[in-house]
C-alpha cells in the first residue's frame, strides 16, 4: 500500500459510522494518514445496529463487518475510540486538533474478548445502547460480541473500583491481564492536520426526549423502528424470533405509523427521508419470518425517491402482504389483552375507523447527533436551524469553514447508499487539500 512521506498532512474524521468509515478507507487507500475519532467504545455506528438494508435486503452487519475490521487493521488509519474533539486551531492545510481520549481501563491490544470480566462484574443493569436499551450489561462491557475494536471496556461511572476502591474482581479474574486501572483520560494533540471531515451521523427522536405519543412507553406493544430492528435481528435480544413484549406471542398483525415526530411543528419540521423505505423493509423482513403476517402502513404520503425504491414499495404490497393506508392517526388505546387499538381517519374514504393489531411500530424521526452543537462551537462551523451541518446545495460536502467537510446524516437525513457516496465525495475533497490539488 502506498504511503505518503512521514511528515505529510493527515485527515481527522469525526465519527466512525458508515460515512466516516468509508471516508477513512478511501483516504487510507490513497496513502493518506487518517485519524478516525469515535465517541463510542466501538465503531460501526447506526448501520451496525440494523438487521437488513434496503432496497436489496442485504444483511447490514455482513456488509459492514469487513469494513470495520479493514478500518481497524489499515496501516494508514489510526482509530481513536472513546474519544472526542476538544479543541481545534489553525486553518485549512494546517489544523491542529486536540482529542480527549477517555480511558478504556482495558488494554485494547491485550484483551482477548473472552468476557470473563463481564461475567464476574457485580454491577448489573446498565442499559446497552446498541440493543436499543432493550438489554442490560455489566460495568465491564462490550456493545456486541463482534464489536471493533474487540475489547471490553469498563464504564467509569459505575465501576466500583474506580468509584469506591473496592471490588477489583475483573482485575483478579482476567487471565490475559488486560485490565488496567492506571489508565487516565488523556489529551492527544494532532498537528499538521490538512483537513477535517465531520461525519457525526444521527440520533433518533426517542434519544433526546421521552417520546410519549401514541402510547410509546405506556404500552409495551408499541415499539420504535430501531427497537424492532433489534428485536427482529438474529443477533438481537430475541434471537430473531419477533415476539411481543407483553406475552411473547408472535405478532400476526403489525401496524407501522409513519412520520413520528417528523413533519410536525411539535417535533421536527423536516422529512426524515428514510422512514417510508425502512418501514417497508421491516415489514418485508417480518413477513419473511412469518408468512401469516399482515402489515398495515399508516402514512401521510409515500416518499420513495431513489433508484429502485418505487418498485420496492410495489413489491411490498404485492408479495409481502403490506397494506398502505393513507391516513391520520387519532389515538391509540389497548384492549384487555394489550393489543393496541388504532383509531384513524382514512384519507381516501374520509371515514373514521378502528383497527386492532398485535404490535405498533413507530417510524421515529432522524435528528442531528446529540453533541453536534458543542462540536460545531469547537470547529466554528455553521449549523442550519435544525442543527444539521449547514452546506451549500452545489457544494454539498463543504461546511462554512474551508478545509472542514461533512457527509452523511450529519448534513441531513439520508440513506446508507447516499451516505457512502457523500463520504467518498468528502474524502476526495479532503484528498485535494492534502495532495495540493
Amino acid at each position, binding site marked *: 500500500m502506498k504511503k505518503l512521506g512521514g511528515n505529510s498532512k493527515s485527515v481527522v474524521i469525526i465519527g466512525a459510522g458508515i460515512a466516516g468509515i468509508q471516508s477513512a478507507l478511501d483516504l487510507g487507500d490513497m496513502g493518506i494518514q487518517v485519524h478516525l475519532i469515535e465517541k463510542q467504545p466501538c465503531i460501526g455506528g447506526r448501520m451496525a445496529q440494523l438487521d437488513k438494508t434496503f432496497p436489496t435486503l442485504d444483511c447490514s452487519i455482513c456488509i459492514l463487518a469487513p469494513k470495520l475490521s479493514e478500518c481497524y487493521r489499515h496501516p494508514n488509519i489510526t482509530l481513536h475510540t472513546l474519544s472526542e474533539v476538544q479543541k481545534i486551531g489553525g486553518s485549512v492545510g494546517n489544523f491542529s486538533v486536540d482529542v480527549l481520549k477517555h480511558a478504556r481501563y482495558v488494554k485494547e491490544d491485550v484483551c482477548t474478548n473472552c468476557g470473563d470480566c463481564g461475567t464476574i462484574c457485580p454491577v448489573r443493569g*446498565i442499559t446497552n445502547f446498541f440493543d436499543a436499551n432493550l438489554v*442490560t450489561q455489566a460495568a465491564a462491557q462490550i456493545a456486541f460480541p463482534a464489536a471493533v475494536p474487540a475489547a471490553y471496556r469498563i464504564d467509569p461511572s459505575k465501576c466500583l473500583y474506580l468509584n469506591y476502591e473496592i*471490588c477489583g474482581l475483573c482485575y483478579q479474574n482476567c487471565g490475559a491481564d488486560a485490565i488496567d486501572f492506571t489508565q487516565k483520560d488523556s489529551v492527544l494533540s494532532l498537528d499538521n492536520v490538512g483537513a477535517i471531515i465531520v461525519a457525526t451521523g444521527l440520533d433518533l427522536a426517542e434519544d433526546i426526549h421521552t417520546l410519549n405519543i401514541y402510547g410509546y412507553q405506556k404500552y409495551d406493544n408499541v415499539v420504535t423502528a430501531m427497537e424492532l430492528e433489534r428485536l427482529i435481528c438474529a443477533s438481537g435480544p430475541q434471537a430473531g424470533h419477533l415476539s411481543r413484549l*407483553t406475552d411473547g406471542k408472535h405478532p400476526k398483525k403489525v401496524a407501522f405509523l409513519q412520520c413520528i415526530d417528523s413533519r410536525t411543528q411539535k417535533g421536527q419540521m423536516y422529512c426524515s427521508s428514510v422512514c417510508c423505505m425502512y418501514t417497508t423493509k421491516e415489514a418485508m423482513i417480518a413477513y419473511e419470518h412469518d408468512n401469516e403476517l399482515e402489515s398495515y402502513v399508516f402514512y401521510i404520503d409515500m416518499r420513495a425517491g431513489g433508484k429502485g425504491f418505487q418498485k420496492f414499495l410495489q413489491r411490498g404490497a404485492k408479495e409481502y402482504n403490506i397494506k398502505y393506508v393513507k391516513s391520520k392517526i387519532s389515538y391509540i388505546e389497548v384492549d384487555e389483552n394489550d393489543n393496541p387499538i388504532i383509531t384513524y381517519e382514512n384519507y381516501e374514504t374520509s371515514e373514521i375507523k378502528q383497527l386492532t393489531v398485535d404490535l405498533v411500530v413507530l417510524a421515529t424521526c432522524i435528528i442531528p447527533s446529540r453533541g453536534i452543537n458543542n462540536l460545531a462551537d469547537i470547529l466554528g462551523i455553521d449549523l442550519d436551524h435544525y442543527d444539521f451541518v449547514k452546506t451549500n446545495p452545489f457544494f454539498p460536502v463543504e461546511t462554512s469553514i474551508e478545509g472542514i467537510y461533512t457527509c452523511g446524516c450529519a448534513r441531513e437525513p439520508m440513506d446508507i447508499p447516499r451516505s457512502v457516496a457523500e463520504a467518498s465525495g468528502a474524502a476526495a475533497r479532503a484528498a485535494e487539500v492534502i495532495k495540493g490539488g
Partner: protein
Amino acid sequence: MADVLPKKTVLKDVKIFKDLEEEIIKTDKCCACGACVAYCSSQMFDVIKMEGYSPQFIADANVDNCKECGLCYYICPQTEPLMKQLNQDYRIKDKIGFIQDIVAAKTTDEKIKEMGQDGGLVTTLLMYLFDKNKIDAAIVSEYDEKLQPIPKIIYNKEELLKSSGTRYSISSNILPLTDLYSIANKIVEKQHQIYDINQIRMAFVGTPCQCRAVRKMQLLSISPAHVIKYVFGLFCMENFDYEKLFQLVKNETNEDSTNIAKMNIKKNFFITNKDNKVYEVELKKFDDAVRNHCHDCDEFTGRFADISFGGSGAVQQNSMVIIRTEKGEELIRDVSIAGYIDKFIPKKSTIAEWKAKKIDLLRRMTNNKIKKS
C-alpha cells in the same frame, strides 16, 4: 498442603468478610438481612452462608475462597460506608427521614381486609402491581407451621394473601435473591418479555434495616438487588429473636408455637391460640427476646423505602402511609385512582393540621424507640 498463591489484587486496605465478622456479627449487631450472603452466593464464590440468623463462613476451608472484594462489608446495613451518600440521595436530614406526603388509607378488597394487618395496604399495593403487570415477583415473608417467618418469593397475586399480616421476628428477606436464575426461569415460563435475567422486576417488602441494605446494593447497582424496582418499608419498633420469643410465649401462656393462630401488639402483646383463646401479656415481659441489633437502631419508619407503612397513628382499619420518593407518590396516586385503596379524609381538622399531627406522633415514636435502646 499446597502453597496458596497470593491473590492478584488492585485493592489496598479493603475491609472484607473477616472484618464484618469481627465488627458486626460477633458483636451481635447483625440484623440478619442476608445481603452479604445473597451477594456472595449469587456470584457463586462459595464462601459464606446463612446459619440460622447469622452469616458465617461455610467451613474453615472456604475462608480461602474469599475474593476479598469487600462488597459484603460495603453493603451491610450496619456498616458506615455509603451511608452519607444514601442520606443525601434520600434527602434524609433527621430520624424520621424525608416525607413527600403522608396519608392514611385502607384496602377496598374484602379478602385482604380480613387477612391483613390494619389497612392491608402492602398486600393491596402488591396486588395492584401484579394486576397491572408492573412486577414479575415480590419478596415477602410468610409464617411456616411453627410461626417462624420465612422469606418467600411470590409470582402472582394468588399467593399474596398468605403473606399478609405482621411478623414479630425477623426473616432474612434479601436472601432468596441469591438464586436469581431459578427466579428468572419461573418468570420466563409465564412471560416472555425478559431477554436477560437482569430485567426481572421485583418488589421488596422489609424492615427499615433490610430496606437500607437494598438501597446500599442499589446505590452500587450490584447483583442481585438490581432487579428490585419497588421498596416497601414497614414501621418497626423492634424485632424479636424467634427462639427466645416462643420460649417466653411458652412460659407465659403454656402454648406451643404450633398451637398459636395469631399474634398482635397493641400496647400489650395479644396471643390467640387455635381455639380462639386470647392471652394478653405485658409487652415488657418480652424485652429479653428483642434482637440485640434493634437496641442500636434509630429507624422506626423506614427512611429508605419508596413508601413506608405501619399501623401507628392511623384510625381503625387504616394504615399509615409515608411516601418518600417520586416513584412511591406515583404508585399511591395510580392505586387510588384505580380504586384499590380508600384514602382517609380527616373530618375534625384540616388535612394540613392532620398531617402535622401525624408526623409529630411518628417523630415521638421514633424518639421513644431511640430512648428505649
